[in-house]
């Protein structure tokens, strides 16, 4: 029997409550059969310092990206990765990570490209679990290699490429970077390494809604009502709109993609993972620089 949905009242308000679990629910269900917890962090060593008991690690850089081409791994490689982690196609995969779940949401989004059926996020991620004093261990999980089918990756539904974005201009775009990156003042996140964009600014018509506005102090998602006020109200996204979200390399926008798709129930949201590191470097891309566009 697959793990149940967390009945938490806050989650029940969301469009797809089955896509999120609370730390408390996870603590009670760690031993459920058919469930694998995946930690995905920005810091590649954080998992080794201690992780949720039984959790396996999936690294976005070294395991989800193709080592040569700027793309995600092939279907064969993804299947191999899943087998090595002991994840089957019918496994419930529950992601958590550092930085308010940026990378956990990113990993969840990549799993979604391969159509993995049951993927969920831990509301609040690693920081909330730790802050609540819940168990952490450095013991390596003992997982038996699984069988995972080679499933064709389907980029069409939730991933946008540069040409898709060019064709999309005039329709809703959400830029989730910091205000200074959006305005063109900075070419990268404050206090982050320069990830090489030659031009600053944003995609014409994009609304600025920094990803963090969807999160509380403790890293958990804002309530349904708050998210509605932010995206439907302030950003003016209509339920049937076709929306593209982007950031710098697609990780922060995965967080927003998750909020729009799974928490608010938007059905046509694509993440442009080329994001600013592609747009800000490609020749003749239209760029807007004033701070208050859109």
């Amino acid at each position, binding site marked *: 029997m697959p793990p149940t949905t967390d009945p938490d009242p806050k989650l029940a308000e969301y469009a797809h409550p089955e896509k999120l679990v609370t730390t408390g629910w996870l603590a009670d269900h760690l031993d459920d059969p058919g469930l694998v917890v995946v930690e995905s962090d920005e*810091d590649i*060593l954080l998992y*080794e310092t201690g992780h949720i008991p039984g959790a396996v690690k999936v690294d976005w850089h070294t395991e989800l990206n193709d080592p040569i081409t700027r793309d995600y791994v092939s279907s064969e490689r993804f299947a191999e990765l899943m087998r090595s982690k002991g994840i089957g196609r019918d496994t419930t995969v529950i992601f958590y990570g550092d930085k308010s779940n940026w990378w956990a949401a990113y990993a969840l989004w990549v799993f979604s490209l391969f159509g993995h059926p049951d993927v969920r996020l831990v509301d609040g991620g690693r920081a909330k679990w730790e802050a609540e004093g819940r168990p952490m261990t450095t013991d390596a999980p003992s997982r038996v290699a699984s069988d995972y089918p080679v499933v064709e990756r389907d980029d069409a539904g939730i991933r946008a490429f540069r040409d898709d974005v060019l064709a999309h201009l005039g329709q809703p775009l959400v830029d989730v970077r910091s205000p200074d990156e959006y305005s063109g003042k900075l070419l990268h996140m*404050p*206090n*982050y390494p320069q990830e090489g964009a030659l031009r600053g600014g944003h995609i014409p018509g994009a609304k600025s809604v920094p990803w963090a506005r969807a999160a509380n102090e403790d890293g958990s998602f804002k309530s349904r009502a708050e998210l509605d006020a932010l995206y439907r109200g302030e950003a003016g996204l209509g339920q049937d709109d076709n929306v593209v979200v982007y950031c710098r390399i697609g990780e922060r926008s995965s967080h927003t993609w998750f909020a729009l798709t799974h928490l608010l129930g938007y059905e046509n949201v694509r993440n442009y993972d080329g994001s600013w590191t592609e747009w800000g470097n490609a020749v003749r891309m239209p760029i807007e620089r004033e701070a208050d566009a859109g």
Partner: protein
Amino acid sequence: MTADGLPPPLAEIVADFAAAPPRDRLEMLLEFAQSLPPLPAHLADHPERLEPVPECQSPLFVTTEIEDGVVHIYADAPAEAPTTRGFAGIFHAGLDGQPPEAILAVPDDITARLALAEVVSPLRLRGAAALLGRMQRQVRDRLAAEASTPT
């Protein structure tokens, strides 16, 4: 200094990483993260004396002091940033106590020589290179300041 321009302790670390199977290299980096000593009191009480290294993905602060002809390296990064701490730990273990010239002679491709790119990803290594660059600049500035101060 060894033939490849590295002070012996750093050369040994480079050799250890190169000899280790990829799976073990992360574990080694974690050990360096854990072995980074806490800041001494005169710096712990005055964080403004440390220079931020914004190129690192997580907050990292570093300062160098030259005393009796050798350089001391002091660095601090939060426990939840073990990779960043690990890089600082490597430089501390490999360079602390070396003469200024030896530190300035460390080639800037040192991070590539650490055989970490395939397990850590090149992007994460940029911060380590920036850390070295900032330490070297500090040492150069301190030497210049000493040279211009009458004794």
